[in-house]
């Protein structure tokens, strides 16, 4: 009842429209891939399904970063860590689903453990043979790390550049740890050679279709969640903390908890994105913790427009489409292009694509209202404020 109210409050026509588009893509793309013959002009090739499935996960990841950066003003440069942890939790489930079908044929131990001469499963691999447990860990592990990290960082009032640096240090430390073989996560190679998910082959067209749809559905839920949160009093509080943190203390709020909630919620969202990503790309390795990955997420969000809901989604998809295109013929230029893009957006489009579009739209509406007033017609003094962030 209360939750229903909360969700309805988050709905405005832009949100409804984007939900409709996301779900339509979630159904249409796999349907056009599965139901039409390969020769049909509207057939969507399988590699496109895989590619766009990946983009949907990135979009959810960017949206989760937007919750902490766009709404609360915490520039996390280690957000990729939560994505990778969610991915590893899912990867562990997928590894245990291989069972005796591995190269070494051990019924319990994944290949890399047999290779390292390990005799038994480390304790932290227990439970991952069950999907429900792995699904829980996909959310709990990133959420817990975010909670512990945020508890100390926010309560000791670490802000701004210092906070960004320690988030970056966090993901870097995790990367180094996961590279080590004796950590028990497959070291350098990570987790791969997956066979089944929930009893279905990860290679099968139907499984890919289902994963694609699940990614779209997760993104839609993410949009609903962020917009409902943004429209609530807590949403206003996030903006207040972003713009004037110290001031909120003097009216009795504790900004450290405002940040902590957003940080943990965003980490859980990122974990879910990572968990959906891994079965679609077929591998998770320590490279996902690389600081550069986290910086890329920031660029997607900046390009699309932080502090908006649709912005990070559009940014993630556009930048990654550009990356796929560019790395097709000149992979060595990608990092330069990314850096250049970030500088260009910071200088010329500080509000990002969607933020700038919203400003333009509001400006047009004000002009229209102004003209109406000149003609002596009734017009509101200030146009109705856009709901939530859109």
């Amino acid at each position, binding site marked *: 009842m*209360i939750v229903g*109210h*909360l969700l309805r409050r988050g709905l405005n026509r832009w949100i409804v429209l984007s939900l409709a588009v996301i779900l339509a893509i979630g159904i249409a793309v796999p349907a056009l891939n599965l139901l039409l013959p390969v020769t049909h002009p509207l057939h969507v090739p399988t590699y496109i399904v895989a590619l766009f499935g990946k983009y949907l996960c990135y979009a959810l990841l960017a949206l989760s970063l937007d919750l902490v950066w766009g709404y609360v003003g915490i520039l996390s440069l280690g957000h990729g860590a939560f994505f990778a942890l969610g991915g590893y939790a899912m990867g562990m489930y997928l590894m245990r689903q291989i069972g005796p079908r591995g190269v070494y044929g051990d019924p319990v131990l994944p290949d890399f453990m047999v290779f390292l001469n390990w005799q038994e499963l480390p304790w932290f691999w227990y439970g991952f043979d069950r999907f429900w447990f792995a699904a829980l860990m996909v959310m709990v592990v990133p959420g817990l790390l975010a909670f512990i990290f945020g508890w100390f960082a926010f309560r000791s009032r670490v802000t701004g550049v210092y906070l960004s640096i320690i988030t970056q240090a966090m993901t870097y430390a995790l990367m180094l740890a996961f590279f080590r073989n004796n950590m028990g996560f497959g070291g350098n190679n990570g987790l791969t050679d997956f066979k089944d998910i929930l009893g279905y082959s990860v290679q099968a067209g139907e499984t890919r279709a289902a994963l694609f749809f699940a990614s779209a559905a997760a993104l839609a839920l993410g949009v609903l969640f962020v917009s409902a*949160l943004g429209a*609530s*009093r*807590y949403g*206003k*509080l996030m*903006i*207040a903390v*972003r*713009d*004037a943190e110290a*001031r*909120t*203390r*003097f*009216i*009795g*709020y*504790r900004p450290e*908890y*405002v940040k902590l*909630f957003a940080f943990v919620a965003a980490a859980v969202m990122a974990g879910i994105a990572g968990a959906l990503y891994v079965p679609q790309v077929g591998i998770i390795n320590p490279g996902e913790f690389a600081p550069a990955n986290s910086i890329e997420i920031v660029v997607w969000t900046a390009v699309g427009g932080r502090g908006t809901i649709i912005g990070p989604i559009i940014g993630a998809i556009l930048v990654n489409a550009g990356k796929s295109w560019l790395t097709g013929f000149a992979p060595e230029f990608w990092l330069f292009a990314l850096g250049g893009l970030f500088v260009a957006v910071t200088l010329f489009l500080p509000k990002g694509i969607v933020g700038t579009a919203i400003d333009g739209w509001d400006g047009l509406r004000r002009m229209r209202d102004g003209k109406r007033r000149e003609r002596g017609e009734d017009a509101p*003094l*200030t146009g*109705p*404020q856009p709901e939530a962030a859109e």
Partner: protein
Amino acid sequence: MNDMAMIEERPLAAKAPQHAALTEREVQESRRKETILYLDGVSVSFDGFRAINNLSFLLGKGEMRAIIGPNGAGKTTMMDIVTGKTRPDEGEVFFNGTVDLTKHDEPAIATMGIGRKFQKPTVFEGHTVEDNLALALAGSRSILAAIFHRRDAEEEARIAEILDTIRLTHLRDASAANLSHGQKQWLEIGMLLAQDPKVLLVDEPVAGMTDAETEETARLLRDIARDHSVVVVEHDMGFVRDLGVKVTCLHEGSVLSEGSIDNVSSDPKVVEVYLGR
């Protein structure tokens, strides 16, 4: 509370005859009980510079007090100490006669009922006028409460009432960033009202206001003072006179002069350090 204080003061009491020390202390304590704000022997230094120097300041329950004094006298720092932003190096700071404010932080002190308007008006510029008030509105400060909060008719009425009081009803949906300096000052006073505190600390409320707005603000503060305790810091002597309350003049971190506006403004010490220049 009583016992605690006695234990703390034992070394002192041991020097003086027991009964005399106790009665003196009792007198002091009963004096404290009647105050809403009680600062005694408060000092604070920044890098060796004494911004507040053995300051004693009492505000009675329901009293309004004006504070004047040259720039750098420590007026704002005194508010920082009361609101928990700055910890005093020494001295006692009590709220309502019993609550030791040096043991609490800003949010705790704010929720106890001490509200503050800053010298530089600070409102939430990303929000509308109405949302600024809604955020300040008294009520639970927990995250869950904020997530599931639903605006009810009572809050609606309270916000409308405050908007009317601060004359910003027509700008209800305007972004706070677009307000004039004077309007921001009023919005911040409105946020103070929304918090419904017991004590209001108002730092230079009429800076940047026209004469008409200044008069209006004096009227508003006198109104508020009818059922709140108020401390107003201001340089504008006409405005202070308009308030018609007891005046304290601070200088170099301690009280230079205290009394009616006429007494204080004719005090030669005040004329020399403050008014004469």
